[in-house]
């Protein structure tokens, strides 16, 4: 009702409600009322969601009231799957309500008739706003909305979001001029409270994330529930858990698997079976975090660490949409640290506090794409475009110089070298108006629109059988024919690669290798990490923990000490002829990877002979030939200066980031099936470009955008900086005679955690030397064999 009142007054509205609760239809209600008299000509309401599947689902749900009330309303969807003829028709004779994605909106805005098409627009509904704001897709959408504000100034905005820690930021994001006050906030009363339990078990492993020990209990829970979603954190975990559950599945319950690498058709089938109530359980990754609501789910199981409170709540919210029942959830930690994390998340949920980073400033790469798109629709004035771009909240603080540099990049590459500006994409007329240099660029733009740059993947195909899904190319690179791996719930034998397809056969492999997908690894949230530290620091609170965990922490207190809430504990100890250094930094896996590399580098310089490191969400452990004597110096703030700069500039992670930025900004084209280079070549080429640009034009706008991205994400340099600053002068160094109880889980991860690409770069020459040793070994063996009597 609050929505209707706001709509009548033409106010912008942000509706924050837990998953389900019919909030999507609530967003459409004002539009349906306005359209009921049949007087509106042209497009009235635009609905934008991050998922194609959601546009179709919402369309179905909307057709029902339209048909029941015989409303004179035409509603259609438009996504990348919509046939060309229908898209063209939609531009000439638009429906009243159009359901689409951020990318399709950008495309529609790039046509010269965009002003006519959107001139009649009265309302824009943005669904799952919490998932879009703060991402590059969100940046693209924010810029698209700013354009819409120019084309249809009176247009009302409605945002729909799950509960978040930063509603003010979302209000700002939704507002037409980055002013939170312009947007009414409607918060849905909390639904029935959730019933969340931590799985009790006496067998708590030291390491691992798949909770194999607890799967019999999980299976029992599935048996007792109607329908269950079993959430895991990575696709590899999904494969393992799915397989193990089927080994336990004596009753042959219909249990399915859902993750982002499976063939789209297969995922659709699982979703349809779920919607029809034909499944008892589905093992899923974040591929089911968003999307279609299923009323029938009555239990959510989270296997492994929750990683963040808001994320866990969204997952739990997928169950119990029947009003008479609370959501039910079961947390299943995979190891002892994950018990702490689960308990911290539970406490936070009970206290009603949330975590999550508010959206940061928008990317310059996305801005470059938007500028080119704007030019495709028609000539633009730079002053007016700058003003318009700053209406979008992610770009509200955009400096004029950043805008100008980005514009120059779109215009002619924006390079410092004189004489190169004869090649251009935009031409300028005297009064500051920019035109597209040739229509060919519009075609290029439309083929490359969007901000999702996928890792290079290969199709997985059964020999003489169907396509099962896709895997990242880097995973396949680690395999040789004959190797086995689990995929799509089956053990498959790798036979070889034909062009872009991985050929496999079914096999009953004994010990399969497991897909080591790059995706799906979320680092522990800063908020949750802080709560875990606090919990460790307050033994009075340990009573809530299972006895094995209490004993573990007690042993740590006696043998070493516990990491203080605002201090950094560093232990050093010898083990099997190696010296270990373990830092309990609690800064998340990505920041720890970076810290591990920097520590290794500094220990190398101190002639300590570092040999390797392992990074988990909680600790980083480095081993070396000689013990570190001056530990606080190793963690000195100067690490953030030249060391970090130098390492980052050279790291594979930054190269990968640059590649994404180069594609989004339009420096190089993205891949298109059929007529393009292979993904491998693109990777190679952007590395070459990166090297040259870094050396000869270090201030180039694309390098600035790359560094901006690296401060978050894979490198998490921002979080590392916070950590180091916080602990200066507060480092507790403990010299031990052997490994401490708290260090055991990290040491057990050694060899299991894949070496990051960045580390690989560093280790390249060592790898080659090892290889030479191996390569020359057969000669030696031959010679020795020759000396033996026949």
């Amino acid at each position, binding site marked *: 009702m609050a929505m209707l009142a706001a709509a009548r007054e033409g106010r912008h509205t942000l509706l924050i409600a837990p998953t389900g609760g019919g909030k999507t239809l609530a967003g459409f209600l004002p539009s349906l009322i306005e359209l009921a008299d049949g007087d509106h000509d042209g497009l009235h309401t635009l609905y934008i969601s991050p998922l194609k599947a959601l546009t179709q689902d919402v369309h179905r749900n909307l057709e029902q009231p339209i048909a029941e009330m015989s409303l004179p309303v035409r509603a259609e969807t438009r996504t990348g799957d919509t046939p060309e003829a229908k898209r063209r028709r939609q531009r000439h004779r638009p429906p009243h309500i159009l359901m689409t994605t951020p990318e399709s909106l950008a495309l529609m805005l790039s046509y010269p008739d965009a002003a006519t098409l959107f001139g009649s627009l009265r309302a824009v509904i943005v669904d799952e706003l919490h998932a879009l704001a703060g991402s590059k897709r969100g940046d693209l959408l924010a810029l698209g909305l700013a354009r819409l504000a120019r084309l249809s100034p009176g247009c009302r905005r409605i945002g729909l979001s799950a509960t978040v820690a930063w509603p003010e930021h979302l209000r700002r994001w939704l507002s037409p001029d980055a002013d939170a006050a312009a947007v009414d906030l409607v918060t849905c009363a909390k639904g029935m409270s959730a019933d969340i339990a931590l799985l009790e078990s006496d067998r708590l492993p030291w390491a691992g994330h798949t909770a194999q020990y607890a799967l019999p209990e999980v299976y029992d829970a599935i048996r007792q529930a109607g329908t269950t979603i079993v959430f895991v954190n990575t696709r590899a975990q999904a494969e393992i858990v799915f397989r193990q559950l089927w080994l336990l599945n004596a009753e042959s319950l219909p249990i399915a698997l859902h993750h982002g690498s499976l063939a789209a058709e297969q995922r659709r089938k699982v979703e349809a079976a779920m919607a029809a109530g034909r499944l008892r359980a589905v093992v899923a990754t974040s591929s089911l975090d968003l999307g279609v609501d299923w009323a029938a789910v009555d239990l959510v199981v989270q296997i492994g660490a929750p990683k963040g409170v808001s994320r866990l709540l969204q997952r739990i919210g997928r169950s119990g949409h029947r009003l008479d029942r609370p959501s039910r959830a079961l947390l299943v930690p995979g190891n002892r640290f994950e018990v702490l994390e689960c308990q911290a998340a539970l406490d936070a949920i009970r206290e009603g506090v949330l975590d999550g980073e508010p959206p940061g400033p928008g990317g310059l790469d996305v801005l470059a794409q938007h500028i080119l798109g704007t030019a495709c629709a028609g000539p633009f004035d730079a002053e007016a475009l700058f003003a318009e771009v700053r209406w979008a909240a992610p770009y509200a603080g955009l400096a004029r110089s950043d805008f100008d540099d980005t514009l120059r990049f779109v215009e*002619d*590459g924006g*390079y410092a*070298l004189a*004489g*190169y500006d004869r*090649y251009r*994409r935009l031409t300028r007329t005297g009064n500051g108006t920019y035109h597209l240099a*040739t229509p*060919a*660029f519009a075609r290029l733009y439309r083929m490359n629109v969007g901000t999702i740059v996928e890792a290079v993947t290969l199709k997985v195909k059964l020999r003489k059988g169907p396509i099962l899904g896709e895997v990242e190319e*880097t995973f*396949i*690179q*680690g395999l040789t024919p004959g190797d086995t791996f689990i995929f799509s719930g089956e053990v498959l034998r790798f036979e*070889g*690669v034909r062009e872009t397809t991985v050929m496999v056969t079914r096999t009953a492999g004994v010990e399969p290798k497991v897909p080591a997908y790059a995706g799906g690894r979320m680092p522990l949230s800063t908020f949750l990490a802080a709560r875990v530290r606090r919990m460790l620091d307050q033994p009075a609170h340990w009573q809530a923990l299972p006895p094995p965990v209490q004993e573990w922490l007690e042993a740590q207190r006696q043998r070493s000490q516990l990491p203080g809430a605002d201090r950094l504990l560093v232990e050093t100890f010898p083990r099997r002829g190696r010296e270990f250094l373990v830092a309990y930094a609690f800064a998340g896996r990505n920041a720890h990877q970076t810290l591990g590399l920097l520590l290794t580098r500094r220990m190398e310089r101190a002639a300590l002979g570092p040999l390797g490191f392992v990074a988990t969400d909680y600790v980083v452990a480095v081993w070396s030939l000689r013990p570190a004597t001056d530990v606080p110096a190793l963690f000195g703030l100067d690490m953030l200066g030249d060391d970090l700069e130098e390492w980052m500039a050279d790291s594979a992670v930054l190269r990968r980031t640059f590649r994404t930025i180069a594609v989004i900004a339009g*420096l*190089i*084209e993205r891949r298109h099936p059929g007529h393009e280079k292979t993904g491998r*070549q693109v990777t*190679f*080429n952007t590395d*070459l*470009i990166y*090297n*040259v*640009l870094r*050396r*000869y*034009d270090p201030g*180039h706008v694309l390098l600035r955008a790359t560094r901006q991205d690296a401060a978050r994400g894979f490198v998490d340099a921002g979080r590392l900086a916070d950590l180091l600053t916080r602990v200066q002068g507060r480092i507790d160094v403990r010299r031990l005679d052997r490994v401490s109880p708290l260090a055991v889980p990290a040491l057990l991860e050694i060899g299991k955690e*894949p*070496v990051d*690409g960045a580390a*690989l770069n560093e*280790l*390249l*020459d060592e*790898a*080659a*030397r*090892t*290889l*030479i040793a*191996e*390569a020359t070994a057969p000669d030696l063996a031959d010679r020795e064999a020759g000396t033996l009597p026949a």
Partner: protein
Amino acid sequence: MTGTPLTFGGVAAIALPEGALLLPDHAALVVADLHLEKGSGLARQRCLLPPYDTRATLDRLEVLIRRWQPRLVICLGDSFHDGGGTNRMAPADRDGLGGLMAGRTWIWIAGNHDGVHAGAIGGQVVASFRLGPLTLRHQADGSDDHAAEVSGHFHPKAAVAAYRRRITLPCFVDDNRRLILPAFGAYTGGLDVFDPALTALLAPRFRVHVLGRDRVHTLPAAALLRPR
């Protein structure tokens, strides 16, 4: 930065980690596939890559020339990315190249990309070049009558396994009769040594000299990963 000594056709040769070949007995430096002005060539096709590739390539070449002071420099073809490259070259780069050429013999072997156009800068343009027992040409021609042939054209690279990953690096390829150099240009990609175009030319038991960060690693073909 040291190189790996090879004896090739009875001539002392050093494979340098920068991807060039040094022939100390002749005070000669050999480089392949510079592809100068590739950036501006692509820019004409409206792909606005950073235009510093020529400068980057010449800077790398200058380092080698200063260090080894060759009397003779041989570029094994495709020195320019296309026939128009010499005209598009920025004046500073043209002067820089002139400085490198001054006081030494400079041989441009004609490639399939640049033909004879490199001659516009100076130096001699030839189809192939004899140096003692060595024949230097752009592309290995597949015939058997060359005792020792040095060529470029293919931009060879090799894949090695390390930490369960595949690392691909530019390399020299050598089967005692033919030596094929990696591409020297800043914007040059590569072709796997197991590509049929290369294996058709090479004896089955060839070796590669992989370019590491600061050294060259010699590996037998059997130690390499096959292309997928």
